[in-house]
């Protein structure tokens, strides 16, 4: 067996730290679970960013995952959390697989625009579908795990632990994926996709695979969010939701699979406090931060760690 590398060790340490932290800080459980769910979406977005693609429509899969959980719980009385999360992954992956045949042909702002159009189509549909509660959405019944309830006020820790494990697995898998030949194509496609074609790799196929993975992760994130919040509405698919994911992805940077979760937790904490103390200026702060990151930290917050490490070893 290969020795685990630094990222894998950090992930194991982070998993244990989070599980302990969750026990110590029960008031933070909701916020942490929510940011882990959103972090999963950002993880998928990061995979696309590494390839040079920006999706302004990850809200599509996020919303689909959430509505899948909601509908199953509401109309079919399926409550098993694992089954629900799997459904979220499956629907995200399936829709991404279908749309991917198209999306893989697009680059740059056209990729961004088409993904935005698809998510807005879903929004337009949900807003007018009375059976799914129109703009109000509907409540998601609390799920169960192996027969015992998770989520809700009383069993929040169980859901949080489940989220931690999901994130742990997803991050490990993606970290391993980055090291595969297909994963290593990402930066190459971003730099010069015509040369990638000359080397004999199919850029379209590579992008398609990445799009499906990103869709699956966003579906999982949406499913987790639906269980955490206990309520879903069409705003999950609105373009501002997708824009928020893009923001967190840029903030985090593409340096490591841990970055999206760090960025997501930082963002949710800042937003919660900013919204509480200054509801009319928090977007200003967020926008200003985004500008600063684009100008001064083009590789995101994570690049600070690399900088420190290089200085330390020099």
């Amino acid at each position, binding site marked *: 067996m290969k020795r685990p590398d630094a990222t894998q060790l950090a992930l194991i340490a982070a998993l244990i730290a989070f599980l302990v932290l969750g026990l110590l800080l029960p008031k933070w459980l909701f916020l942490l679970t929510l940011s882990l769910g959103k972090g999963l979406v950002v993880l998928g977005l990061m995979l696309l960013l590494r390839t040079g693609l920006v999706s302004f429509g990850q809200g599509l899969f996020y919303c689909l995952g959430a509505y899948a959980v909601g509908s199953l719980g509401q109309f079919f009385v399926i409550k098993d959390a694992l089954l629900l999360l799997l459904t979220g992954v499956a629907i995200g992956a399936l829709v991404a697989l279908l749309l991917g045949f198209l999306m893989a042909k697009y680059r740059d702002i056209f990729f961004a625009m088409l993904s935005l159009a698809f998510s807005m*189509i879903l929004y337009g549909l949900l807003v*007018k579908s009375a059976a799914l509660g129109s703009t109000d959405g509907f409540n998601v019944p609390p799920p169960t795990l192996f027969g015992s309830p998770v989520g809700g006020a009383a069993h929040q820790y169980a859901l949080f632990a489940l989220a931690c494990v999901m994130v742990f697995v997803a991050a490990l898998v993606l970290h391993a994926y980055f090291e595969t030949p297909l994963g290593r194509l990402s930066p190459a496609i971003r730099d*010069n996709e015509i040369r990638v074609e000359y080397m004999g790799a199919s850029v379209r196929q590579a992008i398609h695979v990445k799009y499906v993975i990103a869709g699956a992760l966003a579906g999982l994130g949406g499913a987790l969010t639906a269980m955490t919040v206990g309520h879903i509405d069409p705003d999950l698919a609105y373009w501002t939701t997708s824009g928020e994911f893009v923001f967190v992805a840029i903030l985090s940077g593409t340096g490591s699979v841990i970055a999206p979760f760090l960025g997501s937790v930082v963002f949710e904490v800042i937003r919660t406090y900013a919204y509480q103390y200054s509801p009319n*200026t928090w*977007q200003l702060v967020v926008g200003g931060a985004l500008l600063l990151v684009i100008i001064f930290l083009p590789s995101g917050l994570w690049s600070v760690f690399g900088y420190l490490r290089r200085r330390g070893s020099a």
Partner: protein
Amino acid sequence: MREVVALLVDGIIYSSWLFIIALGLTLIYGVMKILNMAHGSLYALGAYVAATLVGYWLGHGYAPLASYGMLALAAVIVGLVAGPLLERGLLRFMYGRDEVVLLLVTYALFLILEDVAKLIWGVEPYYISEPYGMLGNLDFAGLTYPVYNLVLIAVSVIAGVALASVLRYTHHGKLLSAVIHDREISLAMGINVARFYLVTFTIGTMLAAIGGALTAPTVSVVPGMGVQVIVLAFAVVVVGGLGSLPGAALGALIVGLVRSAAVHYKPEVELFSIYAVMALVLIFRPKGLFAAAEVRKI
């Protein structure tokens, strides 16, 4: 028959509104290659300034008819203040970077401007419906329409024709075409590209603000009014082809008529239909209906 006429008239009114906003967006993209996400916020700023000016004007009992001048003044003010401020203060440092990075920069601007509007005008809605009702109504094909809508159509036609004529027939317009086609050669030929960028962005901002100022009398001016406008304007320019003036006109007509047809026959698909058209056009003509072919660069 009457239903078809109503559908067409509604569609054209909506198209005119869309066209005014999309014109600025497509102009900025065509010249500067910036897909400006802050366009909707500039539209909202135009609406807010118009609401303030018209409110002040009517509040002091000045001639009500001149409040239309206030709407125009609002657009000019927003264009002359916000345009140079954003272009000189921020965007000019970003030229030469990826289009996607510029998209993100303008997304940041959008977030900032949304809150700037809240800081200046608060979160309470503003109403200035006087200019809307003042012109009375017009009977057309058995239906009654506010004359104000004619103003909207007229402004959109004038704006489109004026911009197209300037580009095609004036000295500066020809220089601008040169800048659009090759920025570097234009610089080498002694064209002041920086000034063209500044003027372009200012005019684009002004067009967004005109759209907002003309809309202000027909709705309540509230925070977030620009959020939906951005994606609508995106849909229009993407359908027509980014950076193309005739494209923006055609895109506005298509989106406007589709929406009007949806509203008349199947109201529940209104939003869906607009973005479905956008997606369909992107699928079959990825660069829009009026896009020029591009040379592949290795």
